[in-house]
């Protein structure tokens, strides 16, 4: 069950030609998630800073 499905690291990237799709989707998903997390964190920080200044 936990055996590496590919013979080498290059093969894992290439995936018989399907790698490009898999890794593009992977990067889109991860970057969307990360972008949302970071932007919300930033927005919250900004509001907190503003509130602190007004106090």
């Amino acid at each position, binding site marked *: 069950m936990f055996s590496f499905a590919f013979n080498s690291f290059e093969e894992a990237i290439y995936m018989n030609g399907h790698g490009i799709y*898999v890794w593009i989707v992977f990067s889109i998903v991860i970057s969307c998630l990360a972008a949302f997390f970071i932007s919300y964190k930033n927005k919250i920080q900004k509001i907190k800073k503003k509130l602190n200044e007004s106090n």
Partner: protein
Amino acid sequence: MIKKFIHQFASPKTYLFQVNRFYPYIFYISLIIYTFSLIWGLLFTPQDFVQGNSFRIIYLHVPASFLSQSLYVAMAFASITYLVWRVKLAAYLIIAIAPVGAMTTFVALISGSLWGIPTWGTWWQWDARITSTLILFIMYLGLISLHNSFSNYEKADKLLSWLVIVGAVNIPIIKKSVDWWSTLHQSASITLTDKPSIDPSMFYPLIGSIIGFFGLIICLVLISSKHQILIREKTKSWIKDYV
């Protein structure tokens, strides 16, 4: 009775404190599950017999498409809660969920479309599922732009919740009609719905990735609702103590 109960437990203040308490646990646990399942799924499961390696997109696509609809359902419940019991927190949640839902639907669309290239030989197929996801995406965009076009928050909340409810009624209709419509075309040779009985080594990481993604999306909803609360309640005295 119910009204009193909800108002007591759904105060933004209590909510915010509870969120802050549980957020790190949910975040780290789901991050670990998600990372683990993705590594397992993308690198360690055996190749699919029919689709080859492109099937690995399933671990990214299915969680997103699963959640794109669940988030809408959650919004519909929040809308009903808001319109019936006037719970402010529910209104914050609706507009907090909308962009997250739009993002999830976008991810589901893009991943499905990229998956289509190696499997169907085309990046866009007017398949029932894809079409209804596209419509769902348009609905999310409509919701966000509706809320953004009003400066009076309360008015925007009310209109938004009406639209969400109308949309929620519409979703099954769209699904049904699109299913029905796509039978006209020749059906895709490989559909996402009926898979041959899936191998456990492919199945467990799928479950893991769904749970992990679910947890991460919950975290996103939590911080975006926190953001909403901070915007909307910034004049309240407890916020000043809180900050």
